[in-house]
Structure formats: C-alpha cells, structure tokens
C-alpha cells in the first residue's frame, strides 16, 4: 500500500545552504569594515556610502519582481505549482528588499539632494513596483477563491507596467544618479561595491531557498494529508 505520490523532501534545505548561511554571516560581519575603509567620495562625502547598501537592495527588488513575474507566468499558463511557489516567495522578498531600498534611498537623498523624495523616473517606478508587490501579497491573502490566479495576473501586468511608468516619468526629468555611476567608480570603491552586491545577493538566495522550502513543505503536507485520508477510507 505504499504511496508513490509524495516522499518527503530532505529534512532541510541541505548542506550547501548551510554553507551559504555561514558565508553570509561572515560576509556581513566583514562588510561594514570594508565600507568604512572604502575611500570617501569627493562631492557627497561619507554619506555616499549608503550607496553600498542601497543599490544592492534596489537590485534585489528588481530581481525579486522579475522572478515573481516569471513564476506567475509559469503558473498561469502551464499550471506549474512550482512556479506559483516561486512567485509567492519572491513577492515577499520583493516587499522586504523594497522596504530596505525605500528607507535607505531617502536617507541618502536628504543629505545629498536636500529632499527626502523626488518624483523622478527611478524613484516613482520603484515605489510603484513595491506597491504592486505589496498588492500581490494582499491579493494572495484576501483575494478569495481565485486568489492564486488573481495574484499571478497582477504580477504579469506589473512586469509590463514598470517599464512603462519608468519611461513615462523619465520624459520629464531625472535627478537620480544614473547607472553610469558604477563604471566611473574608483578601483577600491568597485571592490567594496561588488562585494556588497555579492553578499546581498547571497542573502537573497539564502532567504529564497529557506522560504521556498517552507512553502514546498506546506504543499507536501497537503498531499500527505490527502493520502492519509485515502488510506483511512480504503
């Protein structure tokens, strides 16, 4: 009477993941040290160093959104439950890193530009993106019976939307430093920046795997519960 439907996956996310966690902890312990030792930027002074945290968070917000859109498309058009899980998890990560971005950005802006917020293309579309991801999480929770499909449609539209918003706002003005900032960094700054970027991305992967594992376990529990019911009835 053995059931082939579900064998529980490994007990935890695995040894590789543990290694990544350790690397992350070490990396984040060392990172502030690196940032302090990095050269001070000429025009903006020490506050520019928020850049080492702000940009990776912004990049992860983008990454999470694309992953969410990708998962949603897989779910919506192929019925892939894995895609649905991926979408769920990355939406939460998007909200998390979005908060980091939207907090560190204005802190930098207040000192660098004198104002907390500007309605330029990049800020507006980032805010919009974050709002939509919050809406995604809300839709999953309160959307009723079709909430999975509803949220997936939301992610699909958001993926198309954000470039449009970016483009539309960009026509007027932009005072946000362009991405060309990165190539013009000095060699030492580049080193710190890419280390920070790497560490943050590793953190994202660690969280993604952990959270994904939880969702997978949850789905497997559903299948197991059904199998138990089957055995009881048979």
């Amino acid at each position: 009477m053995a059931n082939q439907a579900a064998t529980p996956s490994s007990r935890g996310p695995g040894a590789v993941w543990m290694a990544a966690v350790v690397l992350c902890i070490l990396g984040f312990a060392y990172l502030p040290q690196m940032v302090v030792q990095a050269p001070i930027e000429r025009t903006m002074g020490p506050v520019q160093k928020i850049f080492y945290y702000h940009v990776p968070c912004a990049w992860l917000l983008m990454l999470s959104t694309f992953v969410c859109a990708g998962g949603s498309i897989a779910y919506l058009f192929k019925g892939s439950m894995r895609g649905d899980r991926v979408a769920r998890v990355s939406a939460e990560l998007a909200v998390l890193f979005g908060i980091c971005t939207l907090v560190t950005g204005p802190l930098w802006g207040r000192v660098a530009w004198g104002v907390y917020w500007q309605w330029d293309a990049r800020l507006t579309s980032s805010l919009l993106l974050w709002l939509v991801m919050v809406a995604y999480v809300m839709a999953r929770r309160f959307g009723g019976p079709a909430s999975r499909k509803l949220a997936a449609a939301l992610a699909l539209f958001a993926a198309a939307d954000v470039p449009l918003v970016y483009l539309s706002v960009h026509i007027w003005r932009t005072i946000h430093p362009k991405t060309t900032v990165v190539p013009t960094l000095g060699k030492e700054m580049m080193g710190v920046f890419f280390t920070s970027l790497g560490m943050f991305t590793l953190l994202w992967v660690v969280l993604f795997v952990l959270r994904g594992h939880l969702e997978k376990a949850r789905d497997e529990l559903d299948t197991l519960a059904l199998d138990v019911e089957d055995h009881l009835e048979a």
Partner: protein
Amino acid sequence: MLPRESVSVPGFATQVLRIAAKDLRIEWKSREILLTMGYLAVVIVLAFAFAFVTVGGERLSPSVTSGILWVSVFFSGTVALSRTFDRERDGEAIRALLLTPIARSAIYLGKLLGVVVLMASVEVIVVPLTAMFFSAELGSHLLWTALILVLGNFGYAAVGVVFSAALLRSKSRDVLLSALLFPLVLPVLIAGARATSLLLDPKSADLGSAVFWTQFLGISGGIFVVLGLWAFEPVLSGD
C-alpha cells in the same frame, strides 16, 4: 430526433459585439450603472472644486484641472468594472455563458467594449462640467481630447476587466479592485493627464508633446489589451 453532431460558431467579431450589445442593452433598461457612475464622477469633481476654491477665484492651472478630470474618471470607472460582472453573477448567467462555444477572449473584448462605452458616456457629461467649474478651455481641441479619453478608457478597462473577473466571487471585491487596479493603471493616468493638460493650456503650443503622450496612451493601451487577452481565461476559470 437525433442530436446534432456539431453547432456552428459565430465569427469572432460577431461574438464580441453580441457580448457588448447584451451588456449595453441590459444597462439601457435600468441605466443603473450610468447614473451611479455619472453621479460619482460629478461628486468627485465637485469635491475637488470645493477643496481648491479660493477667494480670488483664480483659475487652477491646466495640469491640476486635467488631473481632477482623470481622477474622477478613474474612480467612477470602478463602478462599471464591478457591476459588469455582477450582472453575470445574478442568476449564474456566467455559467451558461461559459458553456456556449464562444471564445473566452471574445467575452473579454466584449466586456471591455461595454465598459469603455459606459465610461465614455459618463465623460460626455463630466468633461464639459469640469470645463465649466474650472473655467478651462476644452473647445479648442475637442476631438483630440475625446480621443485621449477613449484611449485612456481602453487602457484602464483592459486591466480592470481582468481583475474584476478574478474577484467575481471574492468577499472584499470592491476594496481590492481599487487597491489592485490603481498601481497598474498609473501609466494611463500619467499619460492621459499630461496629454489633456497640454491641450487645455491656451498659452502653450506644445502639441508635439501632446502627440507623444497620445501615442504613449495608444501603445500602453495596446500592451494591456494583449496582456488581458492572455490572462483572462486562466483567471476566469479560477480554481
């Protein structure tokens, strides 16, 4: 009497028009959506009029006036969106509709068309009213303004119909519809408001920008309709 083996399916355009005609015909009997939408739109414009009133009675800038118009259109539009699927849910007509051989995409486009017509009907009232309250000159580019509004309606409804269908059986439908819809239709709002304000401004001759924004509206509307065509069927079959 033997059962027939096959049934002929009407052409796609016919399907779309039948659905739209059905919606508008039902609406025409009671005019419930039109009246409630129209009333809401007017009330919103009035609320802004009173919020911005000054003793000197100076005119508001064209961009503010245009913004008020578009906000009013967008908020009153949610009425049409939620009610369009309410009608299907009464008496479970939606199930009978889904069982006919017509394409799901035809249902989507038919509903979209119906909502656009309803929104346009309300705009016929609200636009002159806004012009009157805020002393704005709409007459100069009337047809162009109408085009901008219609394109904006298409973009808005293209997204709205998908989400309204998805929320058909949700308890928090009305609240969620606005919450989910507005971040997504922002490009339409931005482009529409910009284009209209450029046309309203007697001093500026920046018609070039207005053309750009009109094109932008057309393109984003097109993108949303394509996405809506993809997303409508999976969303409607729910789970």
